[in-house]
């Protein structure tokens, strides 16, 4: 027992001494460096890989403690329990809820070394100089704050960034080519009676309704002013279409999490459904053919990024900036790119990837060798090409972004009506 208690007391005394000396006396860098920092990282499990935590521990000595929750829960935690984390990885669309709550801090662009290298998708809403769709909560609309503690978004570049991007991607429909046997080229196929009882949509209201809106526009019935910010009448129209389809038995099931979508597709319960990119990869890795089908109306995109809680200060704040800088420096970016996501600073990620990997994932070229996932498993055989092609082709045809609408409350109520119908 004594062996255990002694060092405990010693560390306690050291801690107390530090606390006492923290105010007036400064300049003990040796002790600072020796004290390990732990950052509580709040986010969805999708972005929280043990490999990244291991690597950052090795490179910076920072311990990452993951708090994995679902997308909506991240927002809820930031708004209701801002002291329960040191770093948050959240979707850009939730900023419309988070920023007015005043719980996160504008990030100082001067402290982010590669801030000006962040892809123009975020800063200007452009890919290779071409403007992409900005309906919904496009990141460029919420990227800058007017002041560090500001509650309003700036529509011009400032030195205060809301979130430093971690991952983003362009979502579309997943299909089972072996069970459909014909080319699929439009969002409207989701509600095609041909696939009655074999289609699915996700039961996350704010994302599901966007997919439905893509279908409505594809059928040519109606064109929205902004799919990501519908009027009440537009919500009614969209939900009405969904209810009709549901009553006609179009949907086999709705899904809410990653694994549900994988199971539905892999078991053949559904042959066409809204899907996320890594879910398609997972279905394929089970030996089941599945395509992340590019569609002529374009993609529904999403992006997430790091934010800092307002309560963060001192060494933890420094450590958080160090971690974010490390994240942008390439290793993590390459890691994410190999999973089919895109990283914020493409140049650094490229430097950490093999040329053949970069050609497959980012340039849409046929794989020269077998493509391996971050865990070493073979994802694709040599010769395969990525669904949707290159970064420019995929991100360049984004039509809209995941969003929080002004009429969000009404939309959720109507969505519940759809589920009850």
């Amino acid at each position: 027992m004594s062996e255990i208690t002694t060092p405990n007391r010693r560390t306690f005394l050291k801690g107390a001494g530090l606390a006492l000396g923290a105010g007036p006396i400064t300049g003990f860098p040796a002790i600072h460096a020796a004290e390990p920092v732990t950052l509580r990282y709040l986010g969805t499990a999708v972005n929280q890989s043990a490999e990244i935590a291991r690597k950052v521990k090795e490179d910076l000595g920072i311990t990452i403690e993951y708090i994995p929750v679902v997308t909506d829960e991240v927002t809820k935690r930031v708004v209701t329990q801002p002291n329960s984390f040191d770093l948050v990885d959240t979707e850009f669309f939730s900023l419309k809820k988070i920023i007015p709550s005043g719980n996160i801090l504008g990030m100082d662009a001067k402290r982010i070394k590669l801030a000006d290298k962040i892809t123009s998708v975020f800063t200007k809403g452009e890919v290779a100089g071409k403007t992409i769709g900005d309906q919904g909560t496009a990141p460029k609309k919420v990227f800058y704050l007017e002041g560090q503690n500001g509650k309003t978004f700036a529509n011009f570049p400032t030195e205060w960034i809301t979130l430093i991007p971690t991952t983003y991607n362009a979502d579309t429909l997943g299909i089972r080519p072996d069970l459909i046997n014909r080319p699929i080229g439009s969002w409207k196929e989701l509600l095609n009676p041909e696939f009655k009882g074999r289609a699915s949509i996700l039961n996350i209201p704010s994302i599901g309704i966007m997919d439905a809106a893509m279908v409505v526009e594809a059928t040519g019935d109606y064109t929205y002013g902004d799919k990501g910010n519908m009027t009440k009448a537009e919500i009614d129209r969209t939900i009405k279409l969904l209810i009709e389809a549901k009553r006609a038995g179009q949907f086999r099931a709705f899904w809410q999490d990653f694994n549900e979508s994988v199971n539905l597709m892999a078991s053949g319960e559904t042959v066409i459904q809204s899907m996320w990119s890594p879910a398609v990869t997972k279905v394929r890795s089970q030996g089941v053919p599945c395509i992340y089908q590019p569609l002529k109306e374009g993609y529904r995109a999403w992006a997430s990024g790091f934010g800092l809680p307002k309560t963060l200060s001192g060494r933890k704040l420094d450590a958080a900036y160090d971690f974010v800088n490390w994240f942008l420096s390439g290793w993590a970016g390459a890691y994410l790119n190999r999973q089919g996501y895109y990283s914020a600073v493409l140049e650094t990620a490229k430097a950490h990837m093999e040329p053949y990997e970069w050609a497959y994932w980012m340039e849409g070229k046929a794989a020269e060798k077998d493509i391996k996932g971050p865990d070493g498993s073979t994802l694709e055989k040599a010769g395969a090409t990525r669904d949707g092609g290159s970064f420019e082709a995929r991100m360049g045809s984004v039509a809209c972004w995941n969003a929080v609408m002004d009429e969000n409350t009404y939309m959720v109520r109507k969505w519940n009506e759809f589920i009850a119908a």
Partner: protein
Amino acid sequence: MTEIVLPAPALAADKPQTSLNAGERRRRRRTYLQAAPMALVFLIFLAIPLLLTLMVSFWEYNEYEIVPAFTLQNYRDVFEGCLNGSDLCTTVRTYLSTLKFCALTWVCTLLIGFTVAYFLAFHVRSRTTQTVLFLICTIPFWTSNVIRMISWIPLLGRNGLVNDTLQSLGLIRSPIEGLLYSDFSVTLAFVHLYTVFMIVPIFNSMARIDRALIEASYDAGATGWQTLTNVVIPLCKPGIAIGSIFVVTLVMGDFVTVGVMGGQQIASVGKVIQVQMSYLQFPAAAANAMVLLGAVMLMILGLTRIIDLRREL
């Protein structure tokens, strides 16, 4: 603790003429004190949270905060469109769907639960066998109910075990779609999950029935069926009532089973509340929770009207 012991003798010594009265009072106070810990637990973990929920249900909210106020808007939203008459509103529809599952599950669990309990209580003679069989009934509870639920999916799916078997036997040509993600699969999962909650209290009631009563019934010339309906069932009423309360409240508040087995396509009150909570609409969720609480209370009130639990126990 000192409060219990100290003032009491002092009080008794001061007023000897009212000693009997004081003793009576002391005993009563002791009873209250004995009940106090439980009451405190109920107060802190049940009464106060409920009051808070009630309070919040009258508050206003926006995307990122809830604002103290007094508004009936949340309740108005719950019942939006219910007075139009032409088409059923979302809330009524949702409740009807939940009530349907309630009724179906109740009937199935009651029939199965009663039969199993009857077998255990009256047909198994040895105490040991009884205990062993009873424990076997609880084995499924060693795993999480989500796992028990999900294990049905590979069985019932379009290309699942049941469809495959039926097809290979040549009994059906194309798979039966309605096996999974349907009312059937939801009810099946509920019955599977909650039958034990019927078995336990009914078995408990049956075990207490004096065997002499059964013999007397037979001696008086009653048939087996008459004995069952006139002796066993009336004496099992408390068990049936308790089991029913378990099953009804569990089904009314469930949203996971309905979600997983219904393929998220079937509405449930719990799901509506969960969606609202995840969108930070706490006051709306609180209002829905209060309405649900009211509905379940009414059902239990109805049940206790039929069976006086207090007297029967």
